[in-house]
C-alpha cells in the first residue's frame, strides 16, 4: 500500500531524513516512534506530499508522491490524515467540517455527504455534537471528530501524526479506543505515536527512528521483546519506566 524507498530530505544544510526505507502492507498497522526531532513526523508528512523530499521515492497504491506530474490533491483525498492539534476548521459546525471536503473534493451531494458524516459521527460517539462548533468541544472530542472527518473520505489508508500528544491524559483513551477499533476493522494505518500500549495492542510492526534514520523496523513482538539497537533499548527503557 505504502512504499517508502530510500527517502532523504534536507532543510538547507540540515538533513532531516536519511535514506528511509520501509513499506506498509494493506491492513497493516505500523507504529512509528522515536525521540522528538528524529524525523518521524516529517516522514509521515512526506507520505501524502505535505512535505517535499529531495531524493528517494514514495509510492502510495501505485502513485508516486514525489512525481511532479502526480495530482497530489487527488491522492490526498483518499489518504486520511489526523494531526496532533486536530485542525478542525473552527468557523464551521462539526457536521460541516465532515461534509465540506466530501462536497467540494469528491463532488458528493449535500444529503449523501450529510448522511455519511452523521454515520461516522455516530461511530465516534459524537452524533449529538453535530450542530456545535469545534471550540465548544473538548480536545478528545475534537480529535475523534477529526478521525471521523478523515473517514468520511473513504480513505485507502490513514496517517496519524501524534494524535494524542496534545490531549489531557484523561482524554487519550477515548481517541485510542477509536483507533484500535479502526485497526481491528482492517484499516491500513501508519501512526506516529508514543503510546506504546496502543502499539502493543494493535501494531503489526514498529519503526524506531533516531536522527532521521530508521534504526529499527521490526515486528511488534521482536521490537518489544528484543530490540536490537542500543538506542531503541534506551528509548524503550525511558518511556516504559513508569
Amino acid at each position, binding site marked *: 500500500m505504502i512504499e517508502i524507498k530510500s527517502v532523504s530530505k534536507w532543510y538547507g544544510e540540515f538533513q532531516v531524513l536519511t535514506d528511509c526505507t520501509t513499506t506498509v502492507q494493506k491492513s497493516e498497522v505500523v507504529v512509528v516512534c522515536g525521540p522528538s526531532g528524529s524525523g518521524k513526523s516529517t516522514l509521515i508528512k512526506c507520505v501524502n506530499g505535505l512535505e517535499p523530499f529531495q531524493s528517494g521515492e514514495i509510492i502510495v497504491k501505485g502513485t508516486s508522491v514525489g512525481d511532479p506530474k502526480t495530482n497530489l490533491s487527488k491522492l490526498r483525498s483518499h*489518504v486520511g490524515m489526523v*494531526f496532533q492539534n486536530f*485542525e478542525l476548521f*473552527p*468557523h464551521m459546525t462539526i457536521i460541516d467540517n465532515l461534509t465540506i471536503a466530501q462536497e467540494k*473534493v469528491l463532488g458528493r451531494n449535500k444529503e449523501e455527504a450529510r448522511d455519511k458524516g452523521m454515520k461516522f459521527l455516530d461511530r465516534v460517539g459524537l452524533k449529538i455534537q453535530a450542530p456545535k462548533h469545534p471550540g465548544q468541544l473538548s480536545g478528545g472530542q475534537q480529535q475523534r471528530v477529526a478521525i471521523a*472527518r478523515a473517514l468520511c473520505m473513504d480513505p485507502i489508508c490513514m496517517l496519524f501524526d501524534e494524535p494524542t500528544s496534545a490531549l489531557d491524559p484523561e482524554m487519550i483513551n477515548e481517541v485510542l479506543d477509536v483507533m484500535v477499533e479502526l485497526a481491528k476493522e482492517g484499516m491500513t494505518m501508519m501512526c506516529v505515536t508514543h503510546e506504546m500500549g496502543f502499539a502493543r495492542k494493535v501494531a503489526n510492526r514498529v519503526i524506531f527512528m533516531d536522527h532521521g534514520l530508521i534504526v529499527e523496523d521490526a515486528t511488534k513482538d521482536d521490537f518489544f521483546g528484543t530490540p536490537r539497537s542500543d538506542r531503541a533499548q534506551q528509548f524503550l527503557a525511558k518511556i516504559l519506566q513508569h
Partner: protein
Amino acid sequence: MSYNWNWGVFLQPSASGDDTYLGWLFTGLKWTISLSLSAWVIALIVGSIIGVLRTVPNRWLSGFATGYVELFRNIPLLVQLFIWYFVLPELLPADLGNAFKQSNPLWQQFFCAMLCLGLFTSARVAEQVRSGIESLPKGQKNAGLAMGFTLPQVYRHVLMPMAYRIIMPPLTSEFLNIFKNSAVATTIGLIELSRQAQQLVDYTAQPYEAFIAVTVMYLLINVTVMFLMRRLEEKVRVPGFVGGK
C-alpha cells in the same frame, strides 16, 4: 474675540441661488460617502488579492505583491493623488488622454480620487489580510490540503473565513481611515465634504459654524461605520473560538 455666531446661515439661500448652504454640505456629504464607499470596494478586492499573494508559496507572485504594497504604502497619499490626476492622463495614449480630459471634470476628479484612495488603502488592507492569514496555525493549511483541497480551495474554504474574522477590528479602522482620507480629494477640486466647508467659509465668512458642521458630519459617518462593523463582527463570531493563535 468678537465673533458673530450665526447658525441660521445654513438655511440661507446659497450663492448659487438654487440651494441653501446646508444643501451644499449635503452635496459634499454625498460625494464623500460615494467616493469612500467605492474606494473601499476597490481596497477590499485588490487588498485581499494582494494579501493572499503575499502568502503563497511562489517567489514571483509574493515578490510582486510585496513590491505593490511597498509602492503604495510608502508614497504620501497626496503625491499619489497628484500623480493619478495630473501625470497619468499625460502618459495615456493621446486619444485616451484627450477623451479623459474632455470628460466631465467632476467625473475626472471622482474617478482619480477613487482609484487613488482605493489602491492606497488596498496596500494597507493587503497587510492586514496577510497578517490574518499568517496568524492562523500552520496546521490549518495542511489539514485542508490533506483532505484533497487544492491550494485555492484551502484559501477559499479554510484560511480566508478565519483570517477575515481575525482582522475585523483593524479592517474597521482602515474603513474609517478611508472616509477621513477622502478629504484629500479637495486638493484636485472634488466638491466633497471638506471642500464644501471651505466654500461655505469663502461665501459666508462663518468658519466656526461651517467646520463644526462638517466635523459633526464626519463623526456621524464614522460612528455609523463603527456601529455597523461591530454588528457584523458579532454576527460572524465563531462560538467557542477564543482569538487567533
